């Protein structure tokens, strides 16, 4: 939590002034009893009506000044708390953007979302409250102790003992609660995860009539959450009663000491009343403090969760590399790859060279490593052995942004974002002119989608308002708008019918800037024309060559081909 406080630096002034103004207001409040005393002494006892009137007006004036002070304080603390959270949120979002694929696989979406939202809100209210009460409470508590010393040092010792004991109780409960609140937030993550699944999987859940089971499972997680909340609630609810009991114990001690001191002729009765009043002030303050502490505890627990994400390293380090390959678009040199935590390599010892303008086809069974192969090129994952070179340079020696700006990827899952078709296409190039967009669309066989709806037609979240085939063609267009040196199509035509697929391939070959193209497909027809075809089986290259050569030399390829065209002959 405390490392997050650096984001408060921009609000140093507000963070200091807020509590200070609040403090002045509190000090002003302490003056009111003196004014009342003056009314009694100079007004009633002396029988002076105008004095009563003047002192009453003075009280109203104090009220007005107090109002001004406290409004200013509220403004400063609100400004600092809201500004602080805004900055942390922005920092966290940027940080998450820097995570690698491996990290994203491991952390999971749900927890990142709760940390960005629910945790953040808790932190905001905690900071706001703290700034308002931070100085005030210790000021009143310690002030009361100092005042007690001015009356009688021996009686004041009761304060000296009570205040640390109270602190132990308050901070002890806080320390116990912080990890418990962390558990609450983790339980909330799981409720969120289930909720998201229920929304994304609604068709499957209904098709399997699993509504009741889903409800039961959600309820179970929800109950775990409630249980955790109630448990921590019961413990933090101890704060008020315990401090209340302790202070009353202290009052008994105080009066006892007072009685002995009066008996000994050291103190007067009035002094005992004053001592008692100071102890009561501590009590009133602690009651206020308790509700703040609960919110603060929650805030610290949530802040820790945010900090934990911020502390994870991001991005891929750029390394010097001596490996080069002049005049090539894409080179794999003895590349192997294994997913984190997996027991076998997903790719083993792949080597190939692709020149600018050439086309590489990649084919193989489900799970043979085709997508993994594609993911190594833009360094989404990093080869565990060997080197990948793009444009003749080791991908590890290029900054991620520069590397990826050269590569246009069309992922398997056709994801579009909320906005318009134009906005989605401009992901490839922010400054693309309409003609460029239209050119990309027609190459991607998506011109008709726009012809009907226009470039500014709305796209809903995940492109829900478009069919699978339409989404796929738009994602292809999006990659083309980028005009990349290397274009990767990861089984991106699976939802297209064959006529469209064929037209797409023709258009890709005629792209004016001649990119090196990597086409991953299940269909031999999609890759048969490629300059080279890589045949993968269980992560190993079992064939590399042209369609004709492979039909001769590679039994796996022949088998795949026959599975698709054998029937045609029959």
């Amino acid at each position, binding site marked *: 939590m405390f490392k997050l406080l650096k984001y408060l630096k921009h609000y140093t002034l507000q963070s200091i002034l807020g509590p200070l103004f609040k403090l002045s207001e509190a000090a002003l409040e302490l003056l009111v009893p003196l004014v009342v005393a003056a009314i009694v002494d100079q007004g009633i006892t002396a029988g002076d009506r105008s004095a009563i009137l003047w002192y*009453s*007006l003075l009280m109203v004036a104090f009220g*007005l000044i*107090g109002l001004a002070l406290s409004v200013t304080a509220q403004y400063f603390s609100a400004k600092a708390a809201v500004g602080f959270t805004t900055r942390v949120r922005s920092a966290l979002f*940027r940080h998450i953007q820097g995570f690698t694929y491996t990290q994203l696989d491991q952390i999971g979406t749900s927890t990142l979302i709760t940390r960005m939202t629910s945790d953040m809100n808790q932190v905001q209210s905690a900071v706001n409250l703290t700034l308002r009460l931070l100085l005030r409470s210790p000021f009143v508590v310690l002030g009361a102790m100092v005042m007690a010393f001015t009356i009688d040092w021996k009686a004041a010792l009761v304060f000296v003992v009570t205040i640390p004991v109270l602190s132990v109780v308050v901070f002890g409960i806080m320390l116990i609660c912080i990890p418990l609140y962390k558990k609450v937030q983790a339980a909330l993550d799981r409720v969120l995860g289930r909720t998201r699944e229920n*929304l994304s999987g609604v068709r499957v859940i209904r098709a399997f009539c699993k509504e009741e089971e889903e409800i039961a499972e959600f309820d179970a997680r929800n109950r775990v959450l409630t249980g955790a909340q*109630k448990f921590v609630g019961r413990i933090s609810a101890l704060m008020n009663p315990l401090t209340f009991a302790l202070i009353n114990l202290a009052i008994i001690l105080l009066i006892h000491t007072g009685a002995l001191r009066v008996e000994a002729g050291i103190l007067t009765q009035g002094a005992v009343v004053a001592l008692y009043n100071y102890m009561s002030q501590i009590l009133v303050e602690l009651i206020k403090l308790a509700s703040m502490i609960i919110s603060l505890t929650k805030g610290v627990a949530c802040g820790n969760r945010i900090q934990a994400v911020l502390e994870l390293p991001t991005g891929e380090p750029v390394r010097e590399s001596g490996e080069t390959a002049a005049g090539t678009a894409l080179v794999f040199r003895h590349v192997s790859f294994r997913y984190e935590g997996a027991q076998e390599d997903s790719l083993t010892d792949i080597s190939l060279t692709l020149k600018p303008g050439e086309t590489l086809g990649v084919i193989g069974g489900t799970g043979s490593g085709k997508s993994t192969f594609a993911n190594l090129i833009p360094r989404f994952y990093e080869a565990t052995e060997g080197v990948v070179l793009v444009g003749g340079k080791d991908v590890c020696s290029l900054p991620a942004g520069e590397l990826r700006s050269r590569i246009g990827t069309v992922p398997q899952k056709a994801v579009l974002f909320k906005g318009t078709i134009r906005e989605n296409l401009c992901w490839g190039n922010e400054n693309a002119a309409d003609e460029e967009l239209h050119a990309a669309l027609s190459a991607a066989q998506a011109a008709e989608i726009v012809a009907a709806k226009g470039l500014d037609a709305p796209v809903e979240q995940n492109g829900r308002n478009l069919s699978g085939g339409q989404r796929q063609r738009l994602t292809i267009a999006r990659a083309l708008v980028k005009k990349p040196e290397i274009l990767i199509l990861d*089984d991106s035509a699976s939802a297209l019918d064959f006529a469209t697929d064929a037209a797409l391939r023709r258009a890709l070959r005629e792209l004016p800037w001649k990119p090196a193209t990597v086409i991953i497909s299940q269909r031999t027809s999609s890759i048969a024309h490629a300059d080279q075809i890589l045949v993968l089986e269980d992560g190993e290259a079992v064939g590399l060559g042209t369609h004709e050569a492979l039909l001769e030399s590679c039994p796996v390829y022949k088998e795949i081909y026959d599975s698709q065209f054998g029937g045609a002959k029959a």
Partner: protein
Amino acid sequence: MKKTNQKAALQGVLKRLRPYTGWVVLSILLATVTVVLSLYIPILVGKAIDCIIAPGKVDFAAIFRIFLEIGGAAGITALLQWVMNAINNKITYQVIEDVREEAIRKIQRLPVSYLDSHSSGDIVSRIIADVDQFADGLLLGFTQLFTGVVTILVTLIFMLTIHPGITALVVVLTPLSLLMARFIAGRTYKMFKLQTETRGEQTAFIDEMIANQKVVKAFNREEINAERFDEINSRLEKASLKATFFSSLTNPCTRFINNVIYALVALTGALVALAGGLTVGGLTCFLSYANQYTKPFNEISGVITELQSALACAARIFDLTDQAPALKETGSGELSGVEGHVDLQNVAFSYMPEQKLIEDLNLQVQPGQRIAIVGPTGCGKTTLINLLMRFYDVNEGSIQVERCDIRTLTRRSLRKNYGMVLQETWLRAGTVKENIAMGKPDATDEEIIAAAKASHAHSFIKRLPQGYDTLLTEDGGNLSQGQRQLLCIARVMLCLPPMLILDEATSSIDTRTELKIQDAFAKMMKGRTSFIVAHRLSTIRDADVILVMKDGHIIEQGNHETLLAQNGFYAKLYNSQFSLTV
């Protein structure tokens, strides 16, 4: 209009509190006892101090008796306070649990069309963040509102015993601070609503971008996204600052009014005292009670601002649970002994009224027939599946299964009879085994493995780190599309209902594996009515009826041979697939 929103939200909250009436009453009782006791302790202390007059005039015996009373009262108060807090916790979190349960039940009954047209991130934000915020407000309301009200009542009684006239003055004036609080609250509700809405928008953005972070990275969009995020973030900052600051004005303002009232009481009290109507001691005492009396008004006004924010959140939750449309069962019929007759009569459907999709579609399917639906992308194939499964209802005409209009059946009974594999391969966070057994949770390991073998998923599952017990991440992210599709097929293979829907079920699977699965599919489809949507014509060559769809109409119908012989649209599609020279 806003007033009624707020009122409706408040009524919604009260409705959900009703089951806990007993606990609420108990909480109020405990609040009363603790307040009375904690106000009584100062009186005891006063008595004790009265026993300490001067050296030699200290009554230790009496003091110790009073100490016992103070100790007892404090002990009891502390204990009751804790019980009360625990009860308030219980009520709050139970209500929250209920609200979330209500929400998930509602989600299961929302029409698919609602979910298709609403951002899931926003719905998530309602169920998670809004409910959370609502809980905070409710809890604060409970802990402070009751004790506040009780303190007011009790001190009022104490004051009345001292001087009824000045008490009347106090009573008449204090509501001013509540009026002030209400005035501010009324103004800030709108700000809170804006804050909540902006938060919802931000959550939706976060949800969308974080869920698709991989695409974001592929397009180097990190910086642009961060900028867009910051734009929403800065709007949220403004909205939050306004809501937080203006709502926090309540406390200083009401405190100011109370200070003025306090000054007025001092003034009139002093004047009355001057006239001999009150002793100095009486005035001091009265003033301290007046102070005790007005303090809860501050707290209550503070609570009111919290409740504002909580109500704005509650309104968004109730929007979902109470306002969003729920599916109604239009019939209670149960399908039994399904053989597989399916009739579509004059079916018309469109997602948007202005854009016609399916018109006048007729089709009679006999038991055990294999119906293949082909056609260019966007021709309405998937829509037909939506109608068969009753994710959407037809606009005109009817769909009948076993000669029952499916609208007279429960959705459950209809869907139980279909096995569905969709192009979108949805898997859940859980083990491989759980995912396969989704349709048949009581399946044995042998059955699961047999289904996995039949769908040719067994070999890749074996190679996963923990085999069948490997945990899939959210959205099944650690598997390839093809592997996920194999799992989806295994899922259906395990429960084998009488009718099948395969919507591009093998689109991501390589053809060699597909050929092998075809055997299993063939076995599975034997005697079962099946609807197959595919672009891969090899998959559908053996179908009994091939429907060629274009723009929502069936333009050709027949089997493979007759359609090829017609040399129409189907023939063109088929030939394009097998021409290598493109």
